C-alpha cells in the first residue's frame, strides 16, 4: 500500500515533467504561494532542519571546529564493518525478497482471479508494514526450540538446532526481513506487471513470437527497469531497518542503525557523539544512492506505462 503510492507519485511526476516546461516557482510573487507556507515551514522544522543539523554536525569536532575526522572514522573498524554488514544485509534481503516476490506477482497476474488479487494485495499490504518487534516475536515463537515451525521441519528431517541454527544471526535477520521484503516486492512490482499490456502479448504472438520469444524480446526488457527499481527499494528498506534488528541481535552483529542507536542512548564517551552524526549521514548517502536511481527509473518507465 505504501509503496504503490510512491509509484503513483513518480508516475505523475513523469507525466507533468514530460508535458510542460519548467515553471519559475520563485518568479511568481510570494503572495500567490502564501498558502503553501504552513506546509513548507512544518517540513523545514521537522525534516530539513534535523537533516541539515546532522550534515553540519558531522563535520564538527567537540570544540566545534571543522573536521573530516568523523567521516574518516567511518572507513575504519568497526564502522566500516558495520556499513559492510548493513549494505550486505540490505542487498541480500533485497535479493531474497525480490525474486520470490516477482515470481509471486507474475504467478498471481497469470491466474487472474480478481478476488485472489485483492486478497494477496491486502495480505501483502499488512505484511509489508509489519516490522520491528511484533515480527521478531512471531519468528522467535515459530522458530524457537519448541516452535511449530522448528518441529515441522524436524518432522521432515530438517533439524535446525542440531545444525547450529539460530535466528540471532545475520542469516536469521535475512530470513525475518524476507517476511516484509517479499510483500513489498509484490506490491511494488505488480503495477509494472499490470502495465504489461495484453495487446503486446497478443501482437507478439500474432507476429509469430512464441511465449519464450515474447518474454525474451518484449516482456523481460520491459520489466527489467521496474524490477531493478523495486530491488533498490527493497535494498533501502533492508538497509535502514532498525526495530527488528535491535530486537534480534544481542550486539553480535555490527549494523549501522544499531550503532547509531547505541550512540543516541548516550552510553558512550562524549566525543563519539559527532561520530553518530557522521554515521547517520553515511546512512543517508547510501539510502540516497539507492533511492534516487529508483525514482529516476520509475519516472522514466511510467512514461510508456500509461
Amino acid at each position: 500500500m505504501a509503496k504503490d503510492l510512491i509509484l503513483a507519485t513518480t508516475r505523475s511526476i513523469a507525466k507533468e515533467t514530460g508535458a510542460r516546461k519548467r515553471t519559475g516557482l520563485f518568479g511568481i510573487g510570494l503572495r500567490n504561494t502564501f498558502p503553501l507556507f504552513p506546509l513548507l515551514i512544518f517540513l523545514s522544522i521537522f525534516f530539513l532542519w534535523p537533516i541539515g543539523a546532522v550534515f553540519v554536525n558531522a563535520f564538527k569536532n567537540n570544540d566545534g571546529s571543522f573536521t573530516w575526522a568523523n567521516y574518516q572514522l567511518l572507513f575504519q573498524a568497526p564502522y566500516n564493518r558495520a556499513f559492510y554488514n548493513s549494505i550486505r544485509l540490505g542487498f541480500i534481503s533485497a535479493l531474497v525478497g525480490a525474486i520470490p516476490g516477482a515470481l509471486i506477482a507474475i504467478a498471481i497476474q497469470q491466474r487472474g482471479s480478481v478476488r485472489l488479487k485483492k486478497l494477496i494485495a491486502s495480505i501483502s499490504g499488512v505484511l509489508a508494514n509489519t516490522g520491528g518487534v511484533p515480527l521478531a516475536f512471531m519468528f522467535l515463537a515459530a522458530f524457537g526450540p519448541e516452535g511449530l515451525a522448528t518441529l515441522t521441519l524436524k518432522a521432515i528431517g530438517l533439524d535446525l538446532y542440531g545444525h547450529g541454527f539460530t535466528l540471532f544471526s545475520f542469516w536469521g535477520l535475512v530470513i525475518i526481513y524476507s517476511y516484509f521484503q517479499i510483500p513489498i516486492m509484490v506490491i511494488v512490482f505488480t503495477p509494472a506487471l499490470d502495465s504489461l499490456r495484453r495487446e503486446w502479448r497478443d501482437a507478439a504472438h500474432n507476429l509469430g513470437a512464441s511465449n519464450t520469444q515474447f518474454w525474451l524480446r518484449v516482456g523481460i526488457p520491459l520489466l527489467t527497469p521496474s524490477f531493478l527499481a523495486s530491488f533498490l527499494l527493497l535494498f533501502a528498506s533492508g538497509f535502514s531497518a532498525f526495530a527488528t534488528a535491535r530486537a534480534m541481535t544481542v550486539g553480535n552483529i555490527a549494523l549501522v542503525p544499531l550503532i547509531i542507536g547505541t550512540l543516541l542512548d548516550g552510553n558512550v564517551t562524549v566525543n563519539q557523539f559527532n561520530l553518530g552524526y557522521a554515521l547517520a549521514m553515511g546512512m543517508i548517502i547510501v539510502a540516497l544512492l539507492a533511492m534516487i536511481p529508483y525514482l529516476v527509473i520509475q519516472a522514466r518507465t511510467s512514461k510508456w506505462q500509461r
Partner: protein
Amino acid sequence: MAALKKRSFSQSLSIILLILIGILIALPLIGATEFSLRDGGRAKHNFHSYTWIFKQEDFFINATTTFEIALVALLVTFILMVPTVAWLHIYGKKYIRFVEIITVLPLIIPVVALATGAQLALPGWLQSTKYVLSMMYVVLAMPFTFRALDIGMRGVQLEVLVAAGRNLGASWRAVILKVITPVILPSIFAALFLTVALSLGEFTLAQLLHWNTFPTWVAVAAQGNILGATALSVGSLLAAWLLLFSFTFFDRKKTNHQEAA
C-alpha cells in the same frame, strides 16, 4: 496465450510456485499463532495469552500515550494537509509537482538518521513533550497522506466542482462545507487512517528519542513473557487485516459509485 492447448505447463508451474511460497509464508504465521495459543506447553491451547497484555500494570498508561500521540498526529495532518492540498488543486496546480517531490523526501531518508537529526536539532522544550513524536509522525506519513489526498481530489476534479459551486452562487463557507468536504471525505479518511496506523506502530523514532510509547513498552515487557508477546503480535496482525479488509470493501462501494457516475 500462444499455444492454446499447451498452456498447462506454465500454468501448473505457477500454481506449484504459489503454493510453495504460500506455505513458506504461512509457516511462521501459523507457528506463531499456535505458539500464542499454548497454555504452558503444547498440550493445552486456549486464548489465555491474549489477555496478558491487558493485565500488565503499565498497559493503560502506555496505550493512552500512544493514543494521544496518534490523535495529535491526526489533527495536525488534518489541519496542515487538507487545506494545503485543496488549495493546490484549486489555485496552485502548477505547484503540485514541486510539493509532490518534497513530500517524497521523508521516504528516502532512513528513519534512524532522521531521529538522530531530530534529537540534535529540535529545541529542548519541544523534545520534552511527547507530541514531538506526533510532529515527526506527520512528516513520516506525509508521502502517503499527500498522495491519498492528491489522488482523491484529482479523481473528482476538485477545481471544477468548486468553480461550479461558486458559479451557482455558493459562498466560500458553503463551498467548503457542502462541496469540498463531502466529496473528498473518503480521501481524508484514507489519509487519517494512514497517519494513525503509522503512529500506533512506530517504534524506531520513539525508541531513539527515548519515549515510552506502546510499541517501545511492549518491546521491553515482552522480554519476560514471550507467549504474551507473541499473542499480541499475532493479534495485532489479524486486527490489521480485519481492518484492511473492511476498509477495502467500504472503499470499493464508494469507488463503484464514482465509476458508475
